[in-house]
């Protein structure tokens, strides 16, 4: 069957879910007609959305039962407020009851929603603990990242707590966005309009090369689906071992080595170089399949 690619980056949060999961398998929890809007946005006279910018529910993907959340990056930058965050946290709580093969978080968020900043920050902290608890119960959590807002602020931390991170070339993960760094530290520190540089710091390819993402895919919902299906097959019937002291000691050592190896680095080129890419100028143009082949083929 010849399926026309559907651009992940441009798609709405609802379209992403609809095209990612098995047809007609999605059931939404707290659907829009229940109108759980943010009272804090109302008080500030700001536009509201019926789902507060995130939909959560149950679905099947390649036959595997999953719980799934999708953030709408076009609504307030996918930012997390009280209701939005509570829906995400509730989904993780539900995972302990339903025990899906995995919880899928389609992250598209700049982090905390400033209109309700305190509630958002606390919600992200609760989400972090909920993810760790879900993983301790043997259930993996996946982050899928390929929207216009990427995964920044607290959602950047959340994404790195996830068991698997599937990212597109256009996807970005970080903590402070380039605009914030430029505003505070100046354009010499980080020129947020230099798109090539921004992608060499936060983009999908550099995150995959560093190992922060476990899969790099093209900007196509079908590609996200294929990678997710493959990882669900891998995890199905094999409960996650929770991280023990040895695992975290090993992770610690890897992060220490990275910090030492790149102790003065300010550009992702060095990371591509260390990962074995020889033609550094063309890495950005390299098709995803070629990139993956070169990366995974490298020692």
């Amino acid at each position, binding site marked *: 069957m010849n399926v026309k690619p559907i651009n992940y980056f441009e798609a709405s949060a609802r379209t992403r879910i609809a095209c990612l999961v098995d047809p007609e398998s999605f059931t939404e929890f707290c659907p829009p007609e229940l109108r759980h809007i943010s009272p804090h946005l109302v008080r500030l006279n*700001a536009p509201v959305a019926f789902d507060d910018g995130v939909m959560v529910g149950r679905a099947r993907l390649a036959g595997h039962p999953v719980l799934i959340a999708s953030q709408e990056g076009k609504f307030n930058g996918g930012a997390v407020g009280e209701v939005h965050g509570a829906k995400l946290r*509730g989904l993780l709580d539900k995972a302990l009851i339903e025990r899906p093969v995995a919880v899928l978080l389609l992250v598209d968020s700049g982090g*905390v929603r400033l209109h309700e*900043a305190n509630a958002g920050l*606390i919600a992200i902290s609760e989400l972090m603990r909920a993810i760790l608890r879900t993983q301790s119960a043997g259930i993996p959590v996946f982050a899928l990242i390929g929207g216009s807002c990427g995964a920044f602020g607290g959602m950047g931390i959340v994404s790195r707590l996830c068991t698997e991170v599937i990212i597109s070339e256009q996807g970005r993960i970080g903590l402070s966005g380039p605009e914030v760094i430029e505003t505070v530290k100046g354009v010499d520190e*980080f020129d947020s309009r230099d798109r090539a540089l921004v992608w060499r710091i936060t983009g999908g390819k550099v995150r995959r090369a560093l190992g922060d993402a476990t899969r790099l895919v093209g900007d196509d919902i079908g590609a996200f689906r294929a990678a997710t299906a493959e990882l669900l097959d891998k995890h199905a019937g094999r409960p996650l071992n929770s991280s023990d002291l040895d695992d975290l000691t090993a992770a*610690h050592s890897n992060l220490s080595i990275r*910090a030492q190896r790149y102790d003065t*680095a300010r550009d992702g080129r060095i990371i591509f170089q260390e990962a074995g890419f020889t033609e550094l100028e063309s890495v950005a143009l390299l098709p995803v399949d070629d990139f993956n082949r070169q990366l995974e083929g490298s020692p």
Partner: protein
Amino acid sequence: MSTLFDRLFDSGHHAVTIDGEFLSGTATVAGGEAVVIGTHNKAAINCGLALKLADAILAAVREDRTLLRPPRTIVFLVDTQGQELSRHEELLGLNGYFAHVARCCDLARSHGHRLVTVIHGEAVSGGFLAFGLMADRVCALPDAQVRVMDLRAMSKVTKIPYDKLVVLAEESPVFAPGAENYWRMGAIHELWSIEDDWGICLASAVTRAGSEDERALLGLERGGRMLAAPIAALVAAA
């Protein structure tokens, strides 16, 4: 720092060393030895500092396990202006280093360590997420400053007039800076006053530290966060 240590630990007894913005060591809390890990001078948390924090947590877990002794309480002394804003740190993946600190906190919790945070300066945004907020119980000293962003910056970003934000902040704890707001929303368990005996406060915080995350319920109880608990429950029960 020594004034704080004197007030916090039994007879001021401690062996905490200061290495730049990083604090670590042990102290006597409620008659027993506790591990102390912290930051001061409004530390901007970068990958290096995150590694030090994580390392200290892992060392405490390892030590108690090796010596086959009951897990000690870990006291986090928090003073952070947030994450360091830098291209280099972003390239390293600072968010991943913060996630690592969070995982280490959770590991310590699962090994039976009680985690108590004392905010003795600032607790801001990403720095607070990675470090203080992951504890079982969070306490704030009287001059603690807790926030995501100050109102002037928030006004600039949201394009809501500053004066309006000031007025709205009076009636809602949801966006304005302040430890009191975080208390009402359930993320800070205790606000200590200048008259309190902080040693007694800390000892009591340790005994009351529970390993379940009940902050949403606490926020509901205190009237500062009315939707988090019910919405999460609604989704979980769907």
